[in-house]
């Protein structure tokens, strides 16, 4: 689905502050005894324990992969590849409490590998696209406390985000998922935290600048 195919005529977003602030992670960083127990069981070959770990982190992993590949189907396949790799390399995980970050890094690498192969495939067959296929827009979920934006603005934002350089778009979308702190994103991308913050800020500045050129500027 492309940005122009958004089903809703208006998008409804929550007002008051950022939707997803990476500085306020949804999951505490402290060691979770249940997580440690599940990892220990999965190391012994317990599929049920690994399945529980997978269930707990599946949607976050899919969002990470989606930020890289832009398509839900490709993201799910990347998560499947990453799950297989995590299952076979679970003995290499030093700290069971660090499973989440470790798994997300594997997911990100698998998704990046898939993105590169997709791009090479598209280049080989002469498909012209700035970065492979267009990103997919899932169905919106209107919230009651509303701040309305027009479909035209949403489409423009989607196109501008998609046109960002990958080094800016990747941390921006990872932060937008709301699942990760800056340090988690930095670990996934292999760059310092300061670089992540700068890239997210720069991405936002570029988006605003391009929207302004498109006539969507918001006078302050």
């Amino acid at each position, binding site marked *: 689905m492309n940005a122009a195919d958004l089903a809703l005529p208006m998008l409804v977003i929550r007002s008051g502050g950022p939707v997803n602030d990476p500085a306020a992670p949804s999951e505490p960083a402290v060691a979770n005894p249940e997580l440690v127990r599940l990892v220990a069981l999965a190391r012994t070959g317990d599929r049920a324990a690994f399945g529980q770990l997978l269930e707990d982190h599946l949607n976050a992993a899919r969002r990470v992969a989606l930020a890289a590949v832009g398509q*839900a189907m490709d993201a799910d396949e990347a998560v499947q590849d990453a799950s297989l790799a995590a299952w076979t390399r679970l003995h290499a995980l030093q700290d069971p409490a660090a499973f989440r970050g470790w798994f997300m890094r594997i997911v990100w690498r698998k998704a990046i590998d898939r993105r590169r192969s997709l791009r090479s495939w598209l280049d080989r067959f002469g498909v012209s696209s700035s970065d492979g296929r267009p990103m997919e827009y899932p169905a919106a979920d209107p919230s009651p406390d509303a701040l309305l934006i027009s479909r035209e603005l949403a489409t423009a934002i989607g196109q501008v985000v998609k046109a960002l350089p990958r080094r800016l778009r990747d941390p921006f979308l990872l932060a937008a998922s709301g699942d990760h702190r800056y340090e988690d994103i930095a670990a996934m991308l292999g760059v310092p935290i300061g670089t992540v913050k700068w890239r997210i800020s720069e991405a936002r500045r570029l988006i605003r600048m391009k929207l302004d050129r498109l006539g969507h500027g918001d006078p*302050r």
Partner: protein
Amino acid sequence: MKRDHLDDAIDHVATLLVRVEDNDGLSTRILASLPDRSPWAPHWWMPRLAITAALGIGVALGVLRTFDDGSTGVLRTENASAPFVEFHAAVERTTGEPAPIVRRTTVERPQNDRRTIEDFERSLVAIAPPAVLSLKSVSPSELPGQGALAVEPLAIADLPLTAEAISPR
């Protein structure tokens, strides 16, 4: 930085870009595709076996080193200067006079040689020491005034054999 309507819109659209719908079958499909991780699966125990074997070999080598009395020339801490002594000796040998080259050739009797040790022992009669050795004394006054100085041949009368009389055998 003050946020505005556009910032909220950007955040919301970015969130939509990474939103995923529930996929209940995905985790089941992933679990079904996982290989066996039981302790009996080869890919599971072979790396552990290799690591254990490597550790065992390392421990064995370490234990064997403790029984070393130094007779094999293994460098020990207290003999740390030995290599330097060897080095200096090697340098001196290199810079000094070259050592004479001694060629040794092992001579073996041919297979068709039928001579025995007894043949050699019996082929020659033992040479007896000379009974009388006469030497003519020459005084300085008897030396010739001119010409070369000639010495008469030494005659040993009682020598029973000469080199020509020895059998070729």
